[in-house]
């Protein structure tokens, strides 16, 4: 698993699942559909990504296509790091 996905998965497990026995989301699972994150949860995730990877996420980037699964986040972070997002 990539470092990005491993980091985000760990963050989600530690902050949202809290060891309560819920299954960790699969790489393509929608956080919204599986009710892993609500809107406040997404704001927490965005803050985590900005702090961890040192970039700012624009208002127009706050969309499910960038943030709603581990695979989407990995691709988004990679695009941001390459300066193409």
């Amino acid at each position: 698993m990539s470092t990005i996905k491993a980091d985000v998965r760990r963050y989600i497990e530690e902050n949202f699942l809290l060891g309560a026995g819920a299954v960790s989301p699969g790489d393509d699972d929608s956080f919204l559909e599986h009710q892993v994150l609500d809107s406040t949860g997404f704001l927490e995730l965005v803050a985590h990504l900005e702090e961890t990877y040192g970039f700012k996420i624009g208002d127009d980037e706050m969309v499910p296509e960038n943030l709603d699964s581990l695979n989407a986040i990995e691709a988004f972070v990679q695009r941001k790091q390459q300066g193409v997002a």
Partner: protein
Amino acid sequence: MSAVPLGPESLALDCEAELQRIAQWIPQVLTQKLRRRGLVVAISGGIDSSVCAALSVRALGAKKVFGLLLPERDSSGFSTERGRQLAEHLGIEYQVHDIAPALEALGCYQQRDEAIRRVVPAYGEGWKNKIVIAGGVEGGINFFKLVVQSPDGEQQSVRLPLREYLQIVAATNFKQRVRKTMDYYHADRLNYAVVGTPNRLEYDQGFFVKNGDGSADLKPIAHLYKTQVYAMARHLGLPDAICNAVPTTDTYTLPQGQDEFYFALPYAQMDIALWALEHGRSAEELAVALKMTPAQAQRVYDDIRAKRRATEYLAAAPELLPG
């Protein structure tokens, strides 16, 4: 498609029959469940609390209803004026209590302003603020923007980081919680019960502060859509200034519509969307009624369901471990 078209007519209400039903229910609840002798209603000057106060008077008579006007530093003067007008119109005893000193002592304004200054360092005396919701209706993820206005009228808008957003909301929630403390002081003093004033849209979508305006002994219009509350206000013959009032939060210093802060759409459309969802109408039908695309209508449905999930705990009793 269902045979009956979806639209404003879906919310038509027999106001007189509903008035009678509520007016009979209130004394039953008071005598059989709550065992209190009258009602305290906090009057904001808005449509919901005005209708609740008027229904309370219809149910019990003016002598058994006590009105409270609880302005603070950021309330609009118009709200207090409309509140007075209503209390005089209904002929109830009422008290105006400025809660600003209590809020000041609790740090409400200071904590809020400190969070705002972390985002807009120049913010200070003479500036105004509000929070607006963004993202969700366009298919994005809901987030909040802080809008501030400098004393010379220049506005700027910035996305709120989570910590600052939560602190601003937590600080402003002092307002609803202090008001509820006052409601219960007077309820205890008079041996009355406290009326909660949410309409169906607010109650369903969790648009209230836990242990603040969400706390009450009875909620006589929580089953009525906001459109129906306006119809009831006109049926009750309430003053024009109240019947025509635009719903605002009256919580932030810049004028702030409820739809800017919380709901995806203006209330008349939200009412239709909520009614349609509750009656099993498809997103396609809603799209026709609201003149939007089916994808947009589906997002409105998704947003309603998401808010229900996120706010379910606000109206719930505390969780207990079975023993």
